[in-house]
């Protein structure tokens, strides 16, 4: 019998619709896979086994009763822990929200439920989505299923690892500076950051409100499109939600996969995000992908984005500034942790003790940095300047998109680095987002998809496609074409090469350290960097 966990969501949905497979069978297959793999991966912070099976059985009953359900009804899905779920804890990877069950669902979660999707659980992430490796999760890191010694990317490493390792057909993520696209790159999966405002953020635990977007994580372009169709569109609960009527992204992906001719498509390679500073194998696979696009008829053009080199600096002013404000709500009064100093204290002292105990080192670092950037006397020089850089980056994109239809870059400068490698060096960690941050600053959509394994380390490499704001459908169309061209070249999807032992034999062969010692037991005072707690 087919291993249901290996099927793309679209194929599983077809079997469910034809009633050849039940949702209970599909859900049980995912839960069994989670039970088998979680000891190695730690992609989930919460698995809702009983609730998932109950919901699956309801879907099966509705279908048996002849109800007309949505195209994805009965398909299991994983949900990043940054999203509020009224039946599961929602911690955003933080101690300060340990065990918190919100009284409402995020809009995207409510839309999943009403489309009949079956939530499997909540996936691991860097605390409050601050990080590129999941090492800043208060509950311990997730391991990359291609090599357990390596990071799965971040902040959404849990969703990406779960999808890559066949624990879930697809998942929800959130992307503030690359938290969907960079994990996709290092795990060989697909991830989409929609146009800012394209997907509701109501019930998404906020990091930086002018940058955050919720989006899909999957193994195929079509699966992301199907999920995007479910979660996208205007939401009156989110005042930044766009009122646009969006085309069917699934139709766009299907169109892209069925017509592989790209004549007339102008593809821009961003000069500043290509070449120097990128791992050799990343450059090689990227150049091969460009050749594939060119062979299909696309015109490859080099474009310049001179202000992208200021993007990280602007981002690490804007993000901490907004985060320091957004995270003020963790005040020990309305929800979450409360720590009372010995002998009691005022509200203010309780608040300070709570935030000291409840936040990890990266969160403290960014809150303090943001508080600094917003201080009187520094505001204009730092935050004000960063906002101007944002304008310059938008102008770079405008100029580029006047010449080309889509922009491409490698999704990340390197393949997955080792757990522990950058944890003590925040600046090195921040540089990892150089390719993904510009799209967030400009609000445009960006998609990451796998383009092969780097020859030097056998680890996945991703390409990022970007389009003008509101042109998400263009990315699904071009992305699906590129994916089909790659599959034709390889003869199979990249994830067919995922090592069944999660790279353990490889690690032994090259003498890598065993991952066990890299995993600090979670708890106050044992934060991964060991330096500030």
């Amino acid at each position: 019998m087919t291993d249901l966990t290996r099927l793309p969501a679209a194929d599983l949905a077809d079997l469910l619709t034809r009633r050849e497979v039940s949702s209970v069978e599909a859900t049980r297959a995912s839960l069994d896979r989670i039970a088998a793999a979680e000891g190695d991966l730690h992609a989930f912070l919460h698995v809702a086994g009983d609730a998932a099976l109950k919901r699956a059985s309801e879907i099966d009953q509705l279908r048996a009763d002849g109800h007309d359900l949505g195209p994805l009804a009965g398909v299991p899905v994983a949900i990043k822990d940054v999203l509020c779920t009224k039946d599961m804890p929602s911690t955003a990877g933080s101690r300060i929200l340990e065990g918190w069950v919100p009284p409402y669902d995020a809009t995207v979660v409510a839309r999943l439920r009403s489309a009949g999707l079956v939530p499997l659980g909540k996936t691991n992430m860097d605390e409050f989505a601050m990080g590129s490796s999941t090492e800043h999760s208060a509950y311990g890191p997730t391991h990359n299923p291609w090599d357990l010694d390596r990071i799965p990317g971040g902040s959404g490493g849990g969703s990406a690892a779960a999808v890559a390792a066949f624990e879930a057909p697809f998942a929800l993520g959130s992307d503030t500076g690359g938290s969907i696209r960079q994990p996709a790159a290092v795990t060989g999966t697909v991830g989409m950051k929609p146009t800012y405002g394209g997907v509701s953020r109501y019930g998404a635990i906020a990091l930086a409100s002018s940058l955050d977007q919720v989006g899909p994580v999957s193994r195929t372009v079509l699966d992301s499109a199907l999920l995007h169709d479910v979660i996208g569109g205007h939401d009156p609960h989110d005042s930044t939600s766009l009122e646009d009527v969006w085309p069917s992204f699934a139709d766009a992906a299907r169109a892209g996969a069925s017509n592989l001719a790209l004549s007339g498509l102008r593809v821009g390679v961003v000069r500043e995000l290509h070449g120097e500073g990128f791992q050799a194998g990343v450059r090689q696979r990227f150049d091969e992908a460009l050749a594939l696009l060119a062979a299909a008829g696309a015109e490859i053009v080099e474009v310049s984005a001179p202000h992208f080199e200021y993007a990280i600096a602007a981002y690490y002013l804007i993000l901490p500034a907004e985060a320091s404000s957004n995270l003020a709500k963790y005040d020990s009064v309305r929800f979450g942790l409360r720590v009372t100093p010995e002998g009691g204290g005022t509200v203010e002292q309780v608040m300070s003790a709570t935030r000291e105990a409840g936040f990890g080192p990266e969160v403290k670092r960014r809150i303090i940095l943001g508080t600094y950037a917003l201080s009187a006397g520094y505001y204009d020089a730092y935050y004000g300047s960063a906002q101007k850089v944002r304008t310059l980056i938008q102008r770079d994109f405008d100029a580029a998109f006047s010449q080309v239809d889509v922009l491409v870059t490698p999704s990340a400068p390197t393949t997955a680095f080792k757990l522990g490698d950058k944890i003590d060096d925040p600046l090195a960690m921040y540089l990892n987002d150089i390719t993904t941050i510009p799209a967030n600053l400009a609000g445009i959509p960006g998609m990451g998809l796998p383009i092969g394994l780097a020859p030097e380390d056998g680890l996945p490499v991703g390409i990022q496609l970007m389009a003008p704001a509101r042109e998400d459908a263009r990315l699904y169309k071009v992305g699906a074409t590129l994916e089909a061209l790659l599959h034709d070249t390889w003869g199979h999807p990249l994830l067919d090469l995922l090592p069944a032992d999660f790279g353990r034999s490889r690690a032994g062969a090259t003498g890598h350290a065993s991952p066990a010692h890299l995993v600090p037991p979670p708890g106050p005072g044992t934060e991964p960097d060991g330096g500030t707690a």
Partner: protein
Amino acid sequence: MPDESPSITADQVQHLANLARIALTPAEIEHLAVELGSIVESVRKVTEVATPDVPATSHPIPLTNIFRADVVGDTLTNEQALSGAPEAFDGRFRVSAILGEEQ
């Protein structure tokens, strides 16, 4: 600012921690002063290109204020609103003293 050294002192970090309501330990303060110094040194490069003629962007997709109709919308019940509270009493959030003794 751009002309001055961005190095950050422990006293500054202590002040910022007070503003941010985080009771950092002395070791954390010392560690953060060093880290923030190098981060600020790096991010201050934004001042190189942020000339007066460039307008600031606060929001990536321009929107005007959105108002909803002035009718009762979805609201939480009192019980739901208090469901995550560390401490509640008589239908309200319970906190410790607002003012210290010397205040």
